[in-house]
Protein backbone atom coordinates (compact mmCIF):
# COMPACT_ATOMS: atom_id res chain seq x y z
CA UNK A 1 0.00 0.00 0.00
CA UNK A 2 1.34 3.42 -0.98
CA UNK A 3 1.16 6.21 1.59
CA UNK A 4 1.00 9.94 0.93
CA UNK A 5 2.43 11.90 3.88
CA UNK A 6 1.60 15.63 3.85
CA UNK A 7 3.21 18.03 6.32
CA UNK A 8 5.00 21.36 5.92
CA UNK A 9 7.48 20.39 8.64
CA UNK A 10 10.38 18.39 7.22
CA UNK A 11 11.08 17.02 10.69
CA UNK A 12 7.53 15.73 11.05
CA UNK A 13 7.59 14.16 7.59
CA UNK A 14 10.80 12.32 8.46
CA UNK A 15 9.36 11.14 11.77
CA UNK A 16 6.16 9.93 10.06
CA UNK A 17 8.01 8.21 7.23
CA UNK A 18 10.38 6.49 9.67
CA UNK A 19 7.48 5.47 11.88
CA UNK A 20 5.64 3.97 8.91
CA UNK A 21 8.75 2.10 7.81
CA UNK A 22 9.15 0.74 11.31
CA UNK A 23 5.64 -0.72 11.26
CA UNK A 24 6.18 -2.19 7.83
CA UNK A 25 5.01 0.42 5.31
CA UNK A 26 7.89 1.40 3.08
CA UNK A 27 6.13 2.81 0.00
CA UNK A 28 5.71 6.47 0.93
CA UNK A 29 5.31 9.65 -1.13
CA UNK A 30 5.84 13.02 0.58
CA UNK A 31 4.32 16.50 0.06
CA UNK A 32 4.94 19.84 1.82
CA UNK A 33 1.40 21.22 1.58
CA UNK A 34 -2.09 20.40 0.35
CA UNK A 35 -1.49 21.82 -3.09
CA UNK A 36 1.59 19.68 -3.70
CA UNK A 37 -0.24 16.68 -2.25
CA UNK A 38 -3.17 17.21 -4.60
CA UNK A 39 -0.76 17.21 -7.54
CA UNK A 40 0.77 13.94 -6.31
CA UNK A 41 -2.51 12.28 -5.47
CA UNK A 42 -3.51 9.59 -7.96
CA UNK A 43 -5.14 6.21 -8.01
CA UNK A 44 -2.02 4.54 -6.65
CA UNK A 45 -2.31 6.23 -3.25
CA UNK A 46 -3.91 3.89 -0.76
CA UNK A 47 -3.57 5.90 2.47
CA UNK A 48 -3.20 9.59 3.28
CA UNK A 49 -1.65 11.06 6.41
CA UNK A 50 -1.98 14.84 6.53
CA UNK A 51 -1.24 17.77 8.79
CA UNK A 52 -3.86 20.55 9.16
CA UNK A 53 -2.07 23.92 9.20
CA UNK A 54 -0.01 24.28 6.05
CA UNK A 55 0.68 27.04 3.53
CA UNK A 56 -1.13 27.20 0.16
CA UNK A 57 -3.70 24.53 1.03
CA UNK A 58 -4.63 23.23 4.47
CA UNK A 59 -5.18 19.60 5.36
CA UNK A 60 -8.96 20.02 5.58
CA UNK A 61 -9.10 21.74 2.18
CA UNK A 62 -6.96 18.98 0.70
CA UNK A 63 -9.21 16.30 2.21
CA UNK A 64 -12.32 17.98 0.79
CA UNK A 65 -10.62 18.20 -2.60
CA UNK A 66 -9.77 14.50 -2.79
CA UNK A 67 -13.16 13.51 -1.39
CA UNK A 68 -14.76 15.21 -4.39
CA UNK A 69 -12.76 13.00 -6.78
CA UNK A 70 -13.80 9.48 -7.72
CA UNK A 71 -10.34 8.12 -6.92
CA UNK A 72 -10.28 9.82 -3.50
CA UNK A 73 -13.76 9.20 -2.18
CA UNK A 74 -12.87 6.17 -0.06
CA UNK A 75 -9.12 6.51 0.53
CA UNK A 76 -8.42 6.50 4.30
CA UNK A 77 -7.34 9.93 5.52
CA UNK A 78 -5.61 10.22 8.89
CA UNK A 79 -5.08 13.74 10.18
CA UNK A 80 -2.01 14.30 12.38
CA UNK A 81 -2.12 17.77 13.92
CA UNK A 82 -1.49 19.81 17.05
CA UNK A 83 -5.07 21.11 16.94
CA UNK A 84 -7.19 19.39 19.56
CA UNK A 85 -10.14 21.66 20.29
CA UNK A 86 -13.51 19.93 19.91
CA UNK A 87 -14.69 22.40 17.27
CA UNK A 88 -11.59 21.71 15.18
CA UNK A 89 -12.11 17.97 15.40
CA UNK A 90 -15.68 18.40 14.18
CA UNK A 91 -14.45 20.48 11.23
CA UNK A 92 -11.99 17.72 10.32
CA UNK A 93 -14.75 15.11 10.53
CA UNK A 94 -16.97 17.17 8.25
CA UNK A 95 -14.11 17.57 5.78
CA UNK A 96 -13.99 13.79 5.42
CA UNK A 97 -11.15 12.77 7.71
CA UNK A 98 -11.42 9.14 8.87
CA UNK A 99 -9.34 9.45 12.03
CA UNK A 100 -7.24 11.92 13.91
CA UNK A 101 -3.98 11.92 15.85
CA UNK A 102 -2.89 14.69 18.20
CA UNK A 103 0.73 15.83 18.09
CA UNK A 104 2.99 14.89 19.73
CA UNK A 105 2.06 11.26 19.15
CA UNK A 106 3.61 7.98 20.15
CA UNK A 107 4.55 5.36 17.54
CA UNK A 108 2.01 3.03 19.17
CA UNK A 109 -0.86 5.45 18.54
CA UNK A 110 0.19 5.85 14.90
CA UNK A 111 0.34 2.07 14.44
CA UNK A 112 -3.11 1.59 16.01
CA UNK A 113 -4.75 4.20 13.78
CA UNK A 114 -3.03 3.10 10.59
CA UNK A 115 -3.79 -0.55 11.23
CA UNK A 116 -7.42 0.22 12.04
CA UNK A 117 -7.91 2.27 8.85
CA UNK A 118 -5.90 0.22 6.42
CA UNK A 119 -7.97 -1.55 3.74
CA UNK A 120 -6.74 -4.90 5.08
CA UNK A 121 -8.27 -4.12 8.48
CA UNK A 122 -11.51 -2.98 6.86
CA UNK A 123 -11.73 -6.23 4.92
Amino acid at each position, binding site marked *: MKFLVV*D*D*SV*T*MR*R*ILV*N*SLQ*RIGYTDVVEAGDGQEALAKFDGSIGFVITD*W*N*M*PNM*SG*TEFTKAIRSRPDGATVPVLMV*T*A*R*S*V*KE*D*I*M*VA*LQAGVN*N*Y*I*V*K*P*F*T*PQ*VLKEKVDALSPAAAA
Partner: protein
Amino acid sequence: MPNSDGGEESPHESEAATKARSPEIRVVPDSASTNSRMPAASVVEPPASIEQSNSRVLELLARVRDTRAALRNSPFAKLQATQEKFRHVTSATEDAASNIMDSCDRANALVDALDTIDAAEQPDRAAALEIRSRLRDELFQMMSALQFQDITSQQLNHSSAILSEVEARLFEVAQYLDGKGPLGHTSTEATTAPELLTYDPDATMKHAEVRQALVDDIFSDSRASAA
Protein backbone atom coordinates in the same frame (compact mmCIF):
# COMPACT_ATOMS: atom_id res chain seq x y z
CA MET B 1 6.06 116.71 40.62
CA PRO B 2 8.30 118.60 38.19
CA ASN B 3 8.45 117.25 34.70
CA SER B 4 11.42 117.09 32.36
CA ASP B 5 10.59 120.54 31.10
CA GLY B 6 10.73 121.86 34.58
CA GLY B 7 6.99 122.36 34.86
CA GLU B 8 4.56 120.56 37.15
CA GLU B 9 3.03 117.33 35.81
CA SER B 10 -0.65 117.30 36.17
CA PRO B 11 -2.20 114.05 37.41
CA HIS B 12 -5.09 114.74 35.06
CA GLU B 13 -3.10 115.44 31.93
CA SER B 14 -5.17 115.19 28.79
CA GLU B 15 -4.79 112.35 26.28
CA ALA B 16 -3.87 114.87 23.62
CA ALA B 17 -1.13 116.31 25.79
CA THR B 18 0.31 112.90 26.55
CA LYS B 19 0.34 111.93 22.87
CA ALA B 20 1.93 115.26 22.04
CA ARG B 21 4.78 114.63 24.43
CA SER B 22 5.32 110.96 23.63
CA PRO B 23 3.84 110.12 20.24
CA GLU B 24 5.01 106.46 20.40
CA ILE B 25 2.92 105.81 23.49
CA ARG B 26 -0.50 104.42 22.74
CA VAL B 27 -3.02 104.94 25.46
CA VAL B 28 -5.32 102.06 26.06
CA PRO B 29 -8.80 103.36 26.38
CA ASP B 30 -10.63 102.43 29.57
CA SER B 31 -13.65 100.28 29.35
CA ALA B 32 -15.99 103.10 30.18
CA SER B 33 -14.80 105.17 27.28
CA THR B 34 -14.68 102.28 24.81
CA ASN B 35 -18.04 100.73 25.61
CA SER B 36 -19.78 102.96 23.23
CA ARG B 37 -17.35 102.27 20.33
CA MET B 38 -16.32 98.59 20.70
CA PRO B 39 -18.34 95.45 21.52
CA ALA B 40 -17.67 94.19 25.08
CA ALA B 41 -16.93 90.67 23.84
CA SER B 42 -13.80 91.74 22.01
CA VAL B 43 -12.21 92.66 25.32
CA VAL B 44 -12.70 89.25 27.00
CA GLU B 45 -12.29 87.00 23.94
CA PRO B 46 -8.83 85.42 23.72
CA PRO B 47 -6.81 86.02 20.64
CA ALA B 48 -7.29 83.60 17.75
CA SER B 49 -3.92 81.99 18.38
CA ILE B 50 -4.94 80.96 21.90
CA GLU B 51 -8.19 79.56 20.59
CA GLN B 52 -6.30 77.56 18.01
CA SER B 53 -3.91 76.26 20.63
CA ASN B 54 -6.80 75.34 22.87
CA SER B 55 -8.59 73.43 20.13
CA ARG B 56 -5.32 71.70 19.22
CA VAL B 57 -4.83 70.65 22.87
CA LEU B 58 -8.41 69.35 23.01
CA GLU B 59 -7.85 67.48 19.78
CA LEU B 60 -4.65 65.93 21.13
CA LEU B 61 -6.41 64.96 24.36
CA ALA B 62 -9.10 63.24 22.31
CA ARG B 63 -6.42 61.43 20.35
CA VAL B 64 -4.68 60.34 23.55
CA ARG B 65 -8.01 59.00 24.85
CA ASP B 66 -8.62 57.17 21.56
CA THR B 67 -5.07 55.85 21.61
CA ARG B 68 -5.39 54.59 25.15
CA ALA B 69 -8.61 52.78 24.23
CA ALA B 70 -7.01 51.37 21.10
CA LEU B 71 -3.99 50.12 22.99
CA ARG B 72 -6.19 48.51 25.61
CA ASN B 73 -8.04 46.60 22.88
CA SER B 74 -4.89 45.87 20.97
CA PRO B 75 -2.63 42.81 20.95
CA PHE B 76 -0.82 44.21 23.96
CA ALA B 77 -3.09 41.97 25.97
CA LYS B 78 -1.64 39.08 24.00
CA LEU B 79 1.90 39.95 24.96
CA GLN B 80 1.42 38.13 28.23
CA ALA B 81 0.35 35.05 26.27
CA THR B 82 3.48 35.46 24.17
CA GLN B 83 5.66 35.37 27.25
CA GLU B 84 3.83 32.21 28.25
CA LYS B 85 4.57 30.71 24.80
CA PHE B 86 8.26 31.47 25.23
CA ARG B 87 8.21 29.68 28.56
CA HIS B 88 6.56 26.70 26.87
CA VAL B 89 9.22 26.66 24.17
CA THR B 90 11.96 26.70 26.79
CA SER B 91 10.25 23.93 28.73
CA ALA B 92 9.57 21.79 25.62
CA THR B 93 13.15 22.03 24.37
CA GLU B 94 14.46 21.21 27.83
CA ASP B 95 12.15 18.19 28.16
CA ALA B 96 13.04 16.94 24.68
CA ALA B 97 16.77 17.35 25.31
CA SER B 98 16.39 15.53 28.62
CA ASN B 99 14.41 12.67 27.03
CA ILE B 100 16.95 12.31 24.23
CA MET B 101 19.83 12.30 26.72
CA ASP B 102 18.06 9.60 28.78
CA SER B 103 17.62 7.53 25.61
CA CYS B 104 21.30 8.06 24.77
CA ASP B 105 22.31 6.80 28.22
CA ARG B 106 20.12 3.70 27.85
CA ALA B 107 21.40 3.13 24.30
CA ASN B 108 25.02 3.35 25.50
CA ALA B 109 24.30 0.83 28.24
CA LEU B 110 22.76 -1.52 25.64
CA VAL B 111 25.81 -1.17 23.38
CA ASP B 112 28.02 -2.03 26.39
CA ALA B 113 25.87 -5.10 27.00
CA LEU B 114 26.30 -6.15 23.36
CA ASP B 115 30.08 -5.72 23.73
CA THR B 116 30.03 -7.99 26.77
CA ILE B 117 28.05 -10.62 24.89
CA ASP B 118 30.45 -10.41 21.94
CA ALA B 119 33.46 -10.77 24.27
CA ALA B 120 32.17 -14.04 25.72
CA GLU B 121 33.66 -17.31 24.51
CA GLN B 122 30.19 -18.48 23.50
CA PRO B 123 28.12 -15.35 22.69
CA ASP B 124 24.45 -15.52 23.66
CA ARG B 125 22.84 -14.76 20.26
CA ALA B 126 19.30 -14.74 21.63
CA ALA B 127 20.23 -12.17 24.29
CA ALA B 128 22.01 -10.08 21.68
CA LEU B 129 18.93 -10.14 19.46
CA GLU B 130 16.75 -8.92 22.31
CA ILE B 131 19.20 -6.13 23.19
CA ARG B 132 19.36 -4.98 19.56
CA SER B 133 15.57 -4.74 19.52
CA ARG B 134 15.66 -2.59 22.67
CA LEU B 135 18.39 -0.50 21.11
CA ARG B 136 16.20 0.15 18.04
CA ASP B 137 13.35 1.17 20.39
CA GLU B 138 15.63 3.69 22.09
CA LEU B 139 16.72 5.16 18.76
CA PHE B 140 13.08 5.41 17.76
CA GLN B 141 12.25 7.15 21.05
CA MET B 142 14.95 9.71 20.29
CA MET B 143 13.44 10.35 16.88
CA SER B 144 9.92 10.73 18.30
CA ALA B 145 11.18 13.20 20.88
CA LEU B 146 12.14 15.46 17.97
CA GLN B 147 8.45 16.25 17.44
CA PHE B 148 9.10 19.13 19.81
CA GLN B 149 10.65 20.96 16.83
CA ASP B 150 7.30 21.07 15.01
CA ILE B 151 5.34 22.13 18.09
CA THR B 152 7.79 24.80 19.23
CA SER B 153 8.09 26.25 15.73
CA GLN B 154 4.30 26.70 15.74
CA GLN B 155 4.49 28.38 19.15
CA LEU B 156 7.24 30.69 17.90
CA ASN B 157 5.31 31.49 14.71
CA HIS B 158 2.33 32.46 16.84
CA SER B 159 4.49 34.68 19.07
CA SER B 160 6.10 36.25 16.02
CA ALA B 161 2.66 37.05 14.58
CA ILE B 162 1.66 38.76 17.83
CA LEU B 163 4.84 40.85 17.90
CA SER B 164 4.26 41.88 14.28
CA GLU B 165 0.72 42.86 15.21
CA VAL B 166 1.96 44.98 18.13
CA GLU B 167 4.53 46.65 15.87
CA ALA B 168 1.82 47.47 13.31
CA ARG B 169 -0.44 48.87 16.02
CA LEU B 170 2.33 51.06 17.46
CA PHE B 171 3.06 52.40 13.99
CA GLU B 172 -0.63 53.10 13.50
CA VAL B 173 -0.84 54.91 16.84
CA ALA B 174 2.22 57.02 15.94
CA GLN B 175 0.62 57.92 12.60
CA TYR B 176 -2.63 58.78 14.36
CA LEU B 177 -0.92 61.03 16.91
CA ASP B 178 0.78 62.83 14.01
CA GLY B 179 -2.62 63.28 12.40
CA LYS B 180 -1.56 61.19 9.41
CA GLY B 181 -4.13 58.44 9.59
CA PRO B 182 -7.09 57.00 11.46
CA LEU B 183 -6.97 54.43 14.20
CA GLY B 184 -8.03 51.23 12.48
CA HIS B 185 -7.57 47.69 13.43
CA THR B 186 -4.41 46.53 11.75
CA SER B 187 -4.37 42.93 12.76
CA THR B 188 -2.75 39.98 11.06
CA GLU B 189 -3.55 36.89 13.06
CA ALA B 190 -6.84 38.12 14.48
CA THR B 191 -8.31 38.71 11.03
CA THR B 192 -7.15 35.37 9.64
CA ALA B 193 -9.50 32.40 9.95
CA PRO B 194 -7.89 29.89 12.37
CA GLU B 195 -8.05 27.06 9.82
CA LEU B 196 -6.09 29.16 7.32
CA LEU B 197 -3.14 29.88 9.60
CA THR B 198 0.02 27.95 8.78
CA TYR B 199 0.42 27.15 12.47
CA ASP B 200 -1.79 26.30 15.41
CA PRO B 201 -1.80 29.15 17.96
CA ASP B 202 -2.60 26.61 20.69
CA ALA B 203 0.02 24.03 19.77
CA THR B 204 1.46 22.42 22.87
CA MET B 205 3.52 19.42 23.96
CA LYS B 206 1.40 19.05 27.10
CA HIS B 207 -1.34 16.51 27.90
CA ALA B 208 -1.11 14.76 24.53
CA GLU B 209 -2.70 11.60 25.93
CA VAL B 210 -5.67 13.48 27.38
CA ARG B 211 -6.18 15.37 24.13
CA GLN B 212 -5.93 12.14 22.11
CA ALA B 213 -8.57 10.57 24.37
CA LEU B 214 -10.92 13.49 23.65
CA VAL B 215 -10.39 13.00 19.91
CA ASP B 216 -11.04 9.27 20.19
CA ASP B 217 -14.27 9.90 22.11
CA ILE B 218 -15.52 12.33 19.47
CA PHE B 219 -14.72 9.92 16.64
CA SER B 220 -16.38 7.03 18.51
CA ASP B 221 -19.52 9.11 19.07
CA SER B 222 -19.51 10.15 15.44
CA ARG B 223 -19.25 6.55 14.24
CA ALA B 224 -21.99 5.46 16.66
CA SER B 225 -24.36 8.17 15.47
CA ALA B 226 -23.55 7.40 11.83
CA ALA B 227 -24.35 3.73 12.40
